[in-house]
């Protein structure tokens, strides 16, 4: 239940970890929105996420929607298997840009 923020190339990378549930989601949401509001391109690293519920997914959706309205980039990186299953089930893997890793994304630019 902790997150870590770093800057890599043009991206602010927010790494979520543990269980992204009803209690953790508001914190994750606030962090994601605050960087987008500072006009940063945001990547959310889900590699250490063991569980994500619909409130967690809603935080990602809100980030995605805000980024779109601000014409910023928003994406997910290193999506863990449990998180990927949830996203796939809701077809949201078709909505969010998903990348293997930040390095991969920057190299392909």
């Amino acid at each position: 239940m902790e997150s870590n923020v770093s800057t890599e190339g043009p991206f602010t990378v927010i790494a979520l970890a543990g269980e992204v549930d009803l209690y953790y989601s508001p914190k994750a949401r606030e962090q994601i929105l605050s960087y987008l509001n500072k006009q940063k391109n945001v990547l959310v690293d889900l590699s250490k996420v063991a569980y994500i519920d619909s409130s967690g997914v809603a935080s990602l959706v809100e980030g995605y929607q805000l980024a779109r309205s601000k014409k910023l980039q928003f994406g997910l990186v290193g999506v863990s298997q449990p998180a990927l299953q949830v996203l796939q089930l809701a077809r949201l893997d078709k909505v969010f840009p998903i990348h293997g890793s930040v390095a991969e994304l920057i190299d392909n630019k």
Partner: protein
Amino acid sequence: MEASHIFSDIKPTDLPAPPQAAIQIMRACSKAEVDHTALTKLASSDPILTAELLRVVNSPYFGLSKEVTSIARAVTVLGQRALRNVALCVSVRDALKEDAIPGFDTSAFWEDAIRRAVSARILGSMTSVDLDDCFTAGLLQDFGLLVMFFLQPAHASRWSELRAQDPDTRYGTEIAIFNTTHEKVGRMLALTWALPEDLVESMGHHHSNKSIPDDNHDQLRKILQCSDWVAAVYNATDKGDIIDQCRKMLDDLLGLDSAQAEQVLTAIPDQANQAAEALGLRIEQQQDFDSIIREANVRLAEANLSYQELTWQLENALNERDRLQAELNNELDLAREVQSSLLPRASSVDYPVIGINLSARHLSGDFYDFFTLPDGRIYFNLGDVSGKGVHAALLMAKTISLFRCLGKRIDDPGQLLGQINNELCETSTRGMFVTVAAGLYNPKTGNVQMVNAGHLPAIMVGKDGKFGKLDAEGLPLGIIADGEYPVKSFNLSDGSLYLFSDGVTEGYLIGGEELGMRGLLNLFRSLANKPPQQRLESITAQLTNSAEALRDDATLVLVEGVKPGA
């Protein structure tokens, strides 16, 4: 003298010096054999001092039966020790005169010192310790503090604060201000002035509970410890507590009972006036002990009153919290009631669609609904709003209402969800979304048109026990407008179609493990021959048997096919 004097560096020359003649008289009187001739000679060298000593020894406080007129005579009548003490008292009194420390009320200090002195003297009389020794030690016990202010006059303004504190608190404050104690400074001064050992010890140790090896010195130490507290009754603020502490100490240290303690405390003002007069020090009108007790009682009553007031306020706050909590709970109960009224009422026994919602503690984000169109086809749905609580419940209410309202006009489930999606996207907030599985069932033909917007797959169970799965092909509602919601058509025949929320698959079984998709499929199969209502109840019963609380709402809808023509 610099304001930031460091006490570890004190040199004897920094300390206030007593009149030399007084010191010499004091020393002469400390010798085993008093040299009367030498004393007379010393006295004649300082006639003012001699006059002052004689005035003091002849004062009513020392209570001589006959006036003495020479120092040599004083030694004979009073004893050399008593004269030594008088000389010492006069010396310290004169060492720091009224205006020695700028901004410092020296007379207030002496007033307190006199109360300590007379208190020590009374205690001496009750415990068979030399009265004059006690008086002198009491007068001198806090002299170190005066010296500290003398060396660091910049702190003079803190004196009134120290004076209002009890001895223990004052000791701590003193360390905070000066980074040393009056015991250490007093002891240093006593050594510098070559005072008798009993004074050095008692000045240096009257705040510690540690015994001094010499019994007489130790008794004096205890007396000084008590006299500090007795005097504090008259100058500190918190009189009630100090009086209690005094009584306790007088009993613990000196074995005095409460009547004796009363006697000591009551005698102070009068004795202090007499001693001040004897020493030629001016002191304020002394408050008597009765009025001090009255003042303490009033304070105690006030404190009790404010304690009661606090308790009362706390009780009120707790009651108010409980009232608000009850109000909120009422509101939530009402909301839950309204929410469950949004779900369809139980239908007739042979109606082909039924649903069940097992409510977790929260207001729910789950919903299901079904209703018949004029042509006999039945719309059904089961959905789940992201998150939980009031905000999820509000979006649930909006979605279920849109479905019912628009569903009566749009008989294509794909188009219907597309419309609802656009409506939700228009007012989307906080990334909230809704996953829905929905369909239109024609009981006459067994035909089903299904659509799945990001929800768990719907499961069809054939009479032969085979499963069919209808995965989500569209996105959850409320994320992106103008989405596609592809419709899948199939014939249910006499099979069963189940829709369910993740509260079912993620629910706990009696053993503590999750039911899971596999477990649910097994239940569908094993319950296949039971009546529809009993099947749903058996499934939810599995989840409520667990010791773990239901962590999410569990919702199921069953569309039971009827073999055409049956």
